[in-house]
């Protein structure tokens, strides 16, 4: 088993499948009377969040607690980071406190990789800059597998701001490892020219959403990051919504079985209309529930044995 989970590329097909299979067993725990397992008793998991996050942090916290680990939440706001402490010094502090795993979210791409050199415990990347978010990719893959029964051979359209999306990068890496066919869709300004080849051979790029819909098994809408709106990647929000937003009439062009995913938080009316987001094809709420199971699986597989 791997020691850290930093990138979707850290996982080969066997390891990724093992995580998804384990997550399926963990999901059963969520339906029981006692939603707790003793597997990580006495282990300490630190949630080190340098960026705001609700669902990812809560999801990791719930996952660690359901496995009986002790959880320490550390957010940069109101901590010594606000006083200017460096990532390395914070890491050494956590190390001294005996953290067995550090779940880190950081605005700088690559921060979790640096952290992995400094601490003895396992490092889990919970989103770094515009780089990667591997547990999101795992929960997306889990959701696809549980809805559609397989991953190999699926056509997955990832739509939106690929340039800034760590969700997209991790998904491309993981899904192609697992045999799905990914097409990146969005305005040319938001899809780097060489990204498809650089991430995984076989990944396609298409600038026309309507062209990919009829053959897509999964449409994954990415959040349009409003903070980037001023950077003139596209002329206006309305134009973006018209060309790349998923509304009811576009959804009707999808095959019968196709599902609609979104990593959240959504901009309703921008990349996705409420009609689509609340339809039975949307897996958005399911993704959140699956996130806990998948993160339990990741923490168990990283910390459950003596893998160090």
């Amino acid at each position: 088993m791997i020691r850290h989970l930093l990138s979707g590329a850290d996982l080969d097909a066997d390891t990724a499948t093992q995580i998804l299979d384990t997550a399926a067993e963990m999901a059963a725990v969520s339906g029981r009377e006692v939603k707790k397992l003793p597997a990580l008793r006495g282990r300490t998991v630190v949630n080190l969040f340098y960026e705001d996050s609700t669902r990812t942090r809560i999801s990791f916290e719930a996952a660690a607690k359901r496995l009986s680990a002790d959880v320490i939440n550390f957010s940069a706001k109101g901590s010594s980071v606000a006083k200017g402490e460096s990532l390395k010094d914070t890491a050494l502090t956590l190390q001294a406190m005996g953290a067995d795993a550090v779940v880190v979210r950081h605005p700088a791409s690559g921060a979790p990789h640096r952290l992995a050199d400094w601490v003895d415990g396992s490092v889990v990347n919970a989103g770094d800059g515009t780089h990667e978010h591997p547990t999101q990719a795992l929960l997306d893959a889990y959701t696809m597998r549980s809805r559609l029964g397989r991953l190999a051979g699926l056509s997955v359209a990832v739509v939106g701001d690929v340039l800034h999306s760590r969700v997209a990068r991790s998904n491309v890496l993981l899904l192609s490892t697992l045999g799905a066919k990914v097409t990146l869709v969005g305005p040319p300004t938001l899809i780097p020219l060489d990204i498809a080849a650089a991430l995984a051979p076989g990944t396609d790029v298409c600038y026309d959403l309507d062209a990919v819909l009829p053959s897509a098994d999964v449409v994954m809408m990415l959040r349009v990051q409003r903070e980037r709106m001023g950077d003139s990647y596209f002329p206006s929000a309305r134009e973006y919504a018209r060309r790349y937003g998923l509304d009811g009439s576009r959804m009707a062009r999808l095959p019968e079985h196709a599902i609609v995913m979104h990593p959240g938080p959504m901009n309703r009316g921008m990349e996705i209309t409420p009609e689509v987001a609340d339809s039975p094809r949307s897996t958005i709420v399911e993704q959140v529930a699956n996130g806990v199971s998948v993160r339990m699986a990741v923490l168990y597989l990283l910390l459950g044995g003596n893998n160090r």
Partner: protein
Amino acid sequence: MAYPTAAHSSPPRQPSVKVILSSVDVQRVVDRIAHQILEKTQGAADTVLLGIPTRGVPLAQRLAARINAFEGISVPVGVLDITLYRDDLRRNATRAVGPTQLPPDGIDGMRVILVDDVLFSGRSVRAALDALGDLGRPAFVQLAVLVDRGHRQLPIRADYVGKNIPTALAESVKVTLAETDGSDEVRLYGEVAR
């Protein structure tokens, strides 16, 4: 119901081997335990058989099949994976988690009979009892094993024993079953450094 097939069923070197139970013996022992369950539970009402993977699972299914053949009663069968409750988790590489499947009516208020192949230290049974406590509240818990080889490390005993085998600590008992290993047999391997 699927169970993983055993990756290894023979030790690396050739130690002295003694067959304790042959295929026919295993069948007779299972038949006897099925009768004992019927006798001791007065007809196996409100009873659930939970197999502990790997080989407890087919054993539980066989017991249910025999009980059904003898008295026409269908006893629900489930699978209880104990991986996450083991006390040696962090001493070994991470173990794969298997499925736990309870019968549709659950285990609350039922007589749960745990089924395993070999009773040795008792630690697996302790783990199973802990797991059971998180899944519901059975009225009774009993234990059925194909082989009891002694050397208990915890105060645990079986209610139904297929065969008591006096062993030395360094010896090992291997159970093979048709469902998981291709054939039914119980063998005792002599004292060989493994």
